[in-house]
């Protein structure tokens, strides 16, 4: 199979002695660092930790659902397990996943800057994330929460006898970490671009992060105040959401989903940015319709703020509101489809190779499309009333979040691994891992669409016996999926010491990050680059190489 990988001569090549990893030593040099690349690594380690905690909880859920009875654990415990799974995966993994790791590492380099605009705030955001994570763990160990990750009132304010306050405050704190990340990205993209780096020369990865940052900055504060009100209602007994005092629980739903719907775009947009870079690199073509893809990110961000009530069709909102929000929901499908079609056209007549990041990207395109199209079922009020609160919705958002976002995350991690560490991951086994993940994923979640259509409700530990066959499929798939996630964990760590030396540009990619050494210097660039080439300009890259050769010769 052809490949575009070109590595330096392994007998003579060395990882550069001076780089951001070796620049300073000792634990304190990491804990007090302002370097965006080191903070990205700190984030990567932390979110991986929480991913495996959330994954273990998912494993327990699937194990319980192997049999129709509630036998592995009591129904109460089951409620806590799926709540903690949701809280950990959404707030501690998916929201920071790509932005805080890859975004943090790459955005300054991609725009030709030495660092993010506010390095100290960047570090602060990591500490806030850790504080939020620690509080979540504390809440989990001391008894857990059983409200579902949505903190639905009046369950969360009056009836639940679990650690709602600790978990709510944990998310409040972690939310500020997300606000600071978004704020840092927006300011950086506006103010820190290198000379010649105009808006339309920005890689689509940067555009996607810019759009996601708008959502983080405008959406997260609303969640923050909502959680404050829930906590005040639980502690003091104020009446904003309490129907016995004249408050309205539906207001909680409006405020909560005003953040939490845009939050799904906070999670998916950075992943879409990764896919744009990977598809371009491995088909050796400029992304088709660059401007359309760039603006579709912004359009998703803007539309994303006007669809929240589609989570509330069965909650007693008016029929007119349902009609309007249903229509607006359909509108979000347009920019999402623009992206998918433009990626497809980028592939058309490209010189496609099938390295691991590309395999994950293909996985993303297929699974995200299925996830997106089933979203149309749920945005249509008639079908939504039948399908919501069933496994159909569980399957839908796992296709988008796990099939989409996690695939994109793994694609990006493999793609930029050589840049971050200076070493290649082992290609064959990682291709295997990508395939195993794809198969395991479909086995796990496709049966859940069928279960949902048949009417199996979500959030129950027990179910009627006729649903067992599909649930066994799903649990079996989950174990394959688990292997698919453990493999990269093992071989990526292995590659830190034994991987092939990557050199500056193993993929022959055009981004500024590939024109500097791997791993980069602490200051990224020895001199600030002046950008004259266009974005995804593979001919420019060829000329550069020819120039180099004649120069040396």
């Amino acid at each position, binding site marked *: 199979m052809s490949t575009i990988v070109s590595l330096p001569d392994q007998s003579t090549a060395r990882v550069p002695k001076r780089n951001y990893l070796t620049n300073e030593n000792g634990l304190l040099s990491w804990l007090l660092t302002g370097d965006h690349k080191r903070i990205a690594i700190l984030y990567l380690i932390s979110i991986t930790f929480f991913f495996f905690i959330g994954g273990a909880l998912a494993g327990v859920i699937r194990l319980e659902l192997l049999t129709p009875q509630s036998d592995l654990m009591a129904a109460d415990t089951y409620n806590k397990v799926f709540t903690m799974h949701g809280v950990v995966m959404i707030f501690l993994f998916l929201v920071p996943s790509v932005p805080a790791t890859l975004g943090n590492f790459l955005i300054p380099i991609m725009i030709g800057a030495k660092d993010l605009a506010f390095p100290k705030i960047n570090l602060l955001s990591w500490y806030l994330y850790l504080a939020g994570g620690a509080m979540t763990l504390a809440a989990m160990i001391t008894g857990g929460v059983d409200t579902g990750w949505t903190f639905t009132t009046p369950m969360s304010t009056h009836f639940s006898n679990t650690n709602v306050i600790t978990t709510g405050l944990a998310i409040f704190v972690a939310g500020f970490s997300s606000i600071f990340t978004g704020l840092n990205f*927006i300011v950086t993209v506006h103010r820190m671009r290198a000379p010649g780096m105009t808006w339309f020369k920005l890689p689509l990865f940067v555009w996607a992060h810019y759009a996601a940052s708008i959502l983080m*900055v405008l959406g997260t*504060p609303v969640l923050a105040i*909502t959680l404050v*009100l829930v906590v005040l209602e639980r502690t003091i007994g104020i*009446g904003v959401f309490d129907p016995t*005092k004249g408050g309205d629980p539906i207001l909680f739903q409006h*405020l909560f989903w005003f953040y939490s719907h845009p939050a799904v775009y906070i999670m998916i947009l950075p992943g879409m940015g990764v896919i744009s870079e990977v598809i371009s690199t491995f088909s050796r073509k400029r992304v088709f319709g660059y401007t359309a893809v760039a603006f579709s990110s912004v359009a998703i961000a803007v539309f994303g703020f006007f669809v929240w009530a589609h989570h509330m069709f069965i909650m007693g909102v008016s029929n007119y509101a349902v009609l309007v929000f249903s229509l607006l929901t359909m509108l979000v499908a347009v920019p999402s489809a623009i992206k998918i079609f433009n990626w497809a056209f980028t592939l058309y007549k490209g010189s496609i190779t099938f390295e691991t990041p590309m395999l994950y990207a293909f996985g993303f395109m297929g699974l995200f499309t299925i996830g997106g199209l089933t979203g149309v079922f749920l945005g249509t009020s008639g079908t939504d009333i039948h399908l919501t609160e069933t496994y159909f919705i569980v399957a839908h958002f796992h296709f988008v979040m796990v099939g989409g976002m996690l695939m994109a995350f793994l694609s990006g991690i493999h793609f930029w691994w050589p840049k971050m560490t200076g070493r290649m991951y082992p290609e064959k086994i990682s291709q295997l891992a990508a395939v195993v993940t794809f198969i395991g994923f479909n086995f796990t979640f496709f049966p859940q669409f069928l279960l949902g259509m048949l009417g199996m409700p979500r959030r129950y530990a027990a179910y009627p016996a006729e649903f067992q066959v599909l649930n066994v499929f799903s649990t079996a798939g989950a174990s394959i999926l688990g292997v698919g996630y453990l493999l990269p964990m093992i071989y990526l760590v292995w590659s830190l010491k034994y991987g092939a030396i990557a050199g500056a540009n193993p993929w022959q990619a055009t981004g500024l990050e590939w024109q500097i050494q791997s791993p980069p210097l602490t200051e990224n660039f020895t001199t600030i680059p002046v950008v004259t080439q266009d974005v995804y300009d593979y001919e420019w890259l060829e000329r550069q190489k020819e120039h180099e050769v004649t120069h040396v010769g």
Partner: protein
Amino acid sequence: MDSHAVATTADAHGHEHDHPAYLRHHFVSYEQQTETASFGMWLFLLTEIMFFGGLFTAYLIYRNWYYPAFVAGSHQLSITLGSFNTLLLITSSFTMAMGVWSAETKRHKGLVWSLIATLILGIGFLGIKTVEYKEKWEKHHIPGDTFSVQSFVNPSSDAEAKAAGDKPMGLDMARKTEVYFSLYFAMTGMHALHMIIGIALLCGMLFKAVRGGYMDGNIAFVENFGLYWHFVDIVWIFLFPLLYLISRHQ
């Protein structure tokens, strides 16, 4: 760009490539650094607007639903104390602006005294707020288990309600005053929390200013804190009419 850049580099060693010590390594020029900081601050204030926006939305909805309860609730607030507090805050915004101006023009004494004045006015605001909260506590107007609707079902028993000429309210609507007071405490409480954070920052800034800080042209912190302080002031400018004034004569 040049006027600023020249101004900051002139008192260094005189030639162009020198830059002040406070220029962070990842910025090209001091101008880029200050513009970045102030852009970041404006963006942060935008997040603050969204934060308070949730509360204002709740206010808007419940005010429409429970109009009489909101009118009766606002009669319980003291216009005198509220107006005086508004005066204190507006004055503190003025002294803060004086502080920023003093820092820009490198007047050490001006800066220190402006910050002290801002600090005193801010603390004064919180002091008066405490008096108001205490009164609510005594009249059982704090939402929760001890909340009492006595002042609203039987206005003649309550000095403020009597003075405003409130008519007795049905129990059903009277109980909705708890929503009004929930919002009153949530909104003014969040505002007070922002004041407390501001006062803490102000103390740190004053400490540095007394020892001669901010006289080297590196005044981004003072400027951005000024923006924050004005923002907190503006939030109050919205809270005061919404909670105290708007239903006064009904």
